[in-house]
């Protein structure tokens, strides 16, 4: 198998790397770029722990060949917020939406894309959208509240969403 030269935009920066065709995006992110936020949970597309955003849309990195990402824009949990946390991350902290934290990067990336398209989702819309992200610890309530109130809080505080 011949290695291919791949160029991506990763968390806002242009990055080049070489990969064999059978390398998965999750392993390139974790091992090559040390971005260990995306987690290996099931490897079969059922848990959502490996979720990253490609062109702003949630994608499962455990089922994505790294070589297919040439020319794409990828954002991981490490690419949210800059000096301050993203408002959604703040909301997760405030609402007790994190216990062991394993599902959290996937949850946040998925929810981030939901809020980008729909700033005030209903609880039902949130549950529907997050149904591919499994959590063993929290029972989901804190997560849903965190997503639901993320932008409400900001509006109440007078800041931009």
């Amino acid at each position: 198998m011949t290695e291919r030269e791949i160029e991506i935009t990763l968390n806002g920066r242009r990055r080049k790397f070489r990969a064999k065709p059978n390398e998965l995006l999750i392993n390139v992110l974790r091992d090559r770029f040390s971005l260990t936020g995306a987690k290996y949970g099931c490897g079969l597309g059922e848990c959502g722990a490996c979720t990253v955003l490609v062109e702003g849309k949630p994608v499962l990195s455990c089922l994505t060949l790294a070589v297919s990402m040439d020319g794409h824009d990828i954002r991981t949990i490490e690419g949210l917020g800059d000096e301050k946390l993203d408002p959604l991350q703040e909301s997760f902290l405030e609402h007790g939406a994190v216990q062991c934290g394993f599902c959290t990067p996937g949850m946040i990336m998925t929810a981030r894309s939901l809020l980008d398209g729909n700033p005030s989702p209903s609880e039902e819309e949130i549950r529907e959208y997050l149904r591919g992200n499994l959590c063993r610890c929290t029972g989901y309530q804190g997560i849903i509240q965190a997503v639901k109130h993320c932008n409400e809080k900001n509006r109440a505080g007078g800041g931009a969403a």
Partner: protein
Amino acid sequence: MQPNSRFLAQEFEYLEPGTVDEALALLDRYRGASPRILAGGTDLIIRMKTGALRPEQIVSVGKIPELQYIAPDNGLRIGAVTPLSRLERSPEVKGGYSALYEAVRSMAAPAVRNMGTIGGNLCNASPAADTGPPLIAFGATCTLSSLRSSRVVRVEDFFVGPGRTLLAPGEMLTEVQLPPLPACSGSSFLKIGRVSADIAKINLAVYLEREGETCSLCRIALGAVAEKPIRATNAENLLFGLRPDSGVLKELARMAGKEVRPITDVRSTAEYRVDVCQVMVEEAIRAAWARSGGGPIR
């Protein structure tokens, strides 16, 4: 080594055509070998991780924009590599082909629908493929193209068995065609799974046309209850020319229960599938009838 889902142990040649012609040329060149098309990867990569499939060549079609479209054209033409999430957002699909919209909404989760494509769902040919029953119920067709020719087949005939389709070596699915629907028509899709993101224990779609108070056409397509999605043609015929009422529906549901040939597997038993598909058939007909503008069914 044991199958492992943490990484992909298999080695293969990765090919990334930029146009349909390039893709067909590659498939033709490797027709004696074992190429597989990679679209969203949500089925193929899993099957390769578990060792169920061992392609020697992967022809990745994700960078062929000319295969991603939803075009109104005396009905609807859909490019094979169109992601399911795009179908979900399409006003033509949601407004015109309810059963297909409902089916796509029922699939997995947003991330999987961003990756997965309508062509991939058909070509993976799981007997539980959710786009199968609605496309069959609408009488949809699909184009199978090769370097030298192309042919159009009914989606109903495209499925041959579990993981098997009509695709010949060198052929790829390029388009799905949905016929235009008359005003007094309605459709419905139902799926039962363990949880909302699951593969179906049973899925089915009903499409019917109404003339005044009677049903002039009815198609019932069921998935996960046979080796491929099937039509319950005997059940369908019971409704033809009749005004639907509870008695007819009970008869029809019972007939559908006789036409399915399910197995017992990890998701459900054959007995459950026979029993519950009857309930679902009745419910789907009631919904499709209401959507066609039909009055209440007594």
